[in-house]
């Protein structure tokens, strides 16, 4: 294999495995814990590199994991025995452990440590790749197998403990796996940008979907894509750093997901909001027309909005004649449903939620747009199909119901 193929394969595996673990890191709000770990393992890495001349990756990994454990124990101790807030304790552990690492580097001058500081995909050799492959396989097999348990432990540890899960075991296993992945990806992207490979793909995936399995899958894909794209771009020019380009490629994917992600992306949510507000405005027009039919002259006149009226005409809910705007029969049904929901909800608020009759209108004005058929039926059943609202106005019944 050529050096580029090595690098591409490493980036692919790395992106996949860090995306997978990163999705748990993000939902557990541990993004900066990951950052802390990536700095805290440095003394261990230096010690490992200094003690074995042959640079056996396994020994480096073990001593790095020991340093990571020490770092998080220190953090827990600080939180327990001082009044430092979590953010300060985290920053403290991160920077002081890093300083220990730097002091050790300047004294011991171990070979190959620069790859861990700055990241060099090219420095990843066959042994590292085998280790990376093994870790990726373990993650890709184990995590889907234990997915439900891991979800439960991540979201509600107390409940998981009640169910008799070995929560502590899961926490420790996850922590160890995370440290191992951090140490391995440090060689590729460097000490600072490990956080980017962990957090950015997962944060991007959160824009796209609500479900955790899908988040994990998308994060894997994004991490792999970003990593490979970064290696490819850096191979095009000379003297372009690989790690930062991998991080930047992933950040571009993040921005893309932030714009277009179906769940919370900027454009989809804007369109959704627009559509909803247009629906509500349309429903308000229908309701105003209905109320005008009920008691002519008492209702605020319509503020005509040409586009809205055209759209409602096209939907077949209103018709426009020379005398003005009128509801069609299907529009009338629609408006009846709205008014019925409004008045039933007012009734519900006064009877069950101890609202005063003069406080319920605004609440109902909002609720009428969000109560669907099923809820309306439930509401009717609960209230015993009343015929008057708290203000003494009749609650209209739906024509279909009346006829059936």
């Amino acid at each position, binding site marked *: 294999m050529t050096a580029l193929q090595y690098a591409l394969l490493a980036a692919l595996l790395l992106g996949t495995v860090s995306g997978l673990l990163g999705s748990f890191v*993000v939902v557990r*709000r*541990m*993004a*900066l814990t*990951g*950052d802390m770990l990536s*700095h805290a393992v440095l003394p261990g890495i230096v010690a490992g590199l200094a003690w074995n001349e042959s640079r056996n990756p396994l020994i480096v990994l073990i001593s790095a994991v020991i340093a990571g454990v020490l770092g998080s124990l220190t953090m827990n101790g600080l939180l327990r*025995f*001082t*009044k*430092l*807030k979590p*953010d*300060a304790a*985290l*920053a*403290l552990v*991160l*920077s*002081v452990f*890093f*300083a*220990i690492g*730097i*002091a*050790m*580097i*300047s*004294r011991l001058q171990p070979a190959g440590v620069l790859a861990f*500081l*700055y990241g060099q995909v090219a420095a990843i050799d066959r042994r590292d790749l085998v280790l990376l492959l093994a870790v990726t396989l373990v993650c890709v097999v184990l995590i889907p197998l234990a997915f439900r348990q891991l979800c439960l432990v991540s979201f509600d540890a107390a409940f998981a403990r009640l169910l008799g899960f070995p929560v502590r075991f899961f926490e420790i296993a996850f922590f160890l796996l995370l440290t191992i992945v951090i140490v391995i990806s440090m060689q590729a992207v460097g*000490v*600072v*940008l490990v*956080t*980017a490979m*962990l*957090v*950015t793909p*997962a*944060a991007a995936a*959160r*824009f796209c979907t609500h479900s955790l399995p899908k988040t994990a899958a998308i994060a894997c894909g994004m991490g792999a894509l970003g990593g490979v794209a970064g290696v490819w771009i850096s191979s095009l020019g000379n*003297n*372009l*750093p690989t*790690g*930062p*380009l991998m*991080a*930047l490629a992933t*950040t571009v994917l*993040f921005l893309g997901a*932030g714009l277009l992600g179906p769940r*919370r992306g*900027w454009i989809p949510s804007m369109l959704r909001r627009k559509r909803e507000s247009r629906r509500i405005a349309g429903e308000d027009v229908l309701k105003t027309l209905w109320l005008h039919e009920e008691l002519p002259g008492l209702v605020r006149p319509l503020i005509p909005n040409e586009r809205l009226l055209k759209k409602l005409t096209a939907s077949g809910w209103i018709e426009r004649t020379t005398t003005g705007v009128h509801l069609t029969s299907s529009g009338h049904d629609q408006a009846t449903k709205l008014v019925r929901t409004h008045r039933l909800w007012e009734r519900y608020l006064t009877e069950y939620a101890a609202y005063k009759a003069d406080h319920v209108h605004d609440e109902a004005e909002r609720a009428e747009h969000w109560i669907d058929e099923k809820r309306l039926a439930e509401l009717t059943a609960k209230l015993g199909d009343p015929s008057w609202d708290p203000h003494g106005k009749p609650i209209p019944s739906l024509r279909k119901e009346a006829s059936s």
Partner: protein
Amino acid sequence: MNLDFWIDPWRSVTSIWLVVTAAFTAIACGLPGSFLVLRRMSLAGDAISHSVLPGIVVGFLIAGSLDSPWLIAGAALSGWLTVMAIELLHRRGGVREDAATGVVFTAMFSIGVVLLRLFASKVDLDPDCVLFGNLETAVHGSQIAIGNLAVPTIVLLTGSTALLAIAFVTLLYHRLLSTSFDPSLAKLTAQSPALSQSILLAVTAAVVVAAFQTVGAIMSVALLVLPAATCLLITRRLSHLLLGVIIHGFLSAIGGLYLATWLNCNLGASVILAGATLFIACLLRFKRPTSVIKQL
């Protein structure tokens, strides 16, 4: 250990400059850093320390030297942009704060490194600076003659940053006090918390630039957080805290020099290790009485 060990480091002028620079850097970082700790914004300090890099590189490209105000302006701008981007992602995008911080500062840092590589021929900035600075080389850099004394430029740079930090906390003392501890009262008395937060972040970015050459981006986080964390073990008064931060800065600079001579290692790292030793000593010596009462 004999007496020579304690006296030897002071025989050369260079080591005096080293200690002075380290102390200035520590004080410059510690003062705004204590407000970051008090406001629970230490991680914003972490993010800023990494994300000033593109600002520094661009400032360097404009000015062409390491000690110009353009660097500070560029760094302050990119630090401020980072915090704004984090806020935007958090408030508007619904991204959680820690994830937003992780995404933004790594992106800014990568941009900085890529710029540094692209303009490597024009930017005479040691890439090692990015992760760990080098006090010794910084002190051996250019010198300016003041009277008969040849003062290294870095001493003047860090000294003026320390003065800036001291001016910042003394001039804005009451404003910072009220906005840190009681934002609603501050708002009522027409002291905008948002404004003092922006000033605080800009000053943080400025002091981080000074720390960049001496201890590097990551260890400057230690200089921001450690002094305040140490002094908060001893006192609960803001004025005492700030005074303690200055003392901590001096002590860790002196201790750092001894540690570096003893261990023969990077001076920046040993300044921080000396500071951490002070923290541990205070932790062991001053058990807070309140926590004892709670345990009883």
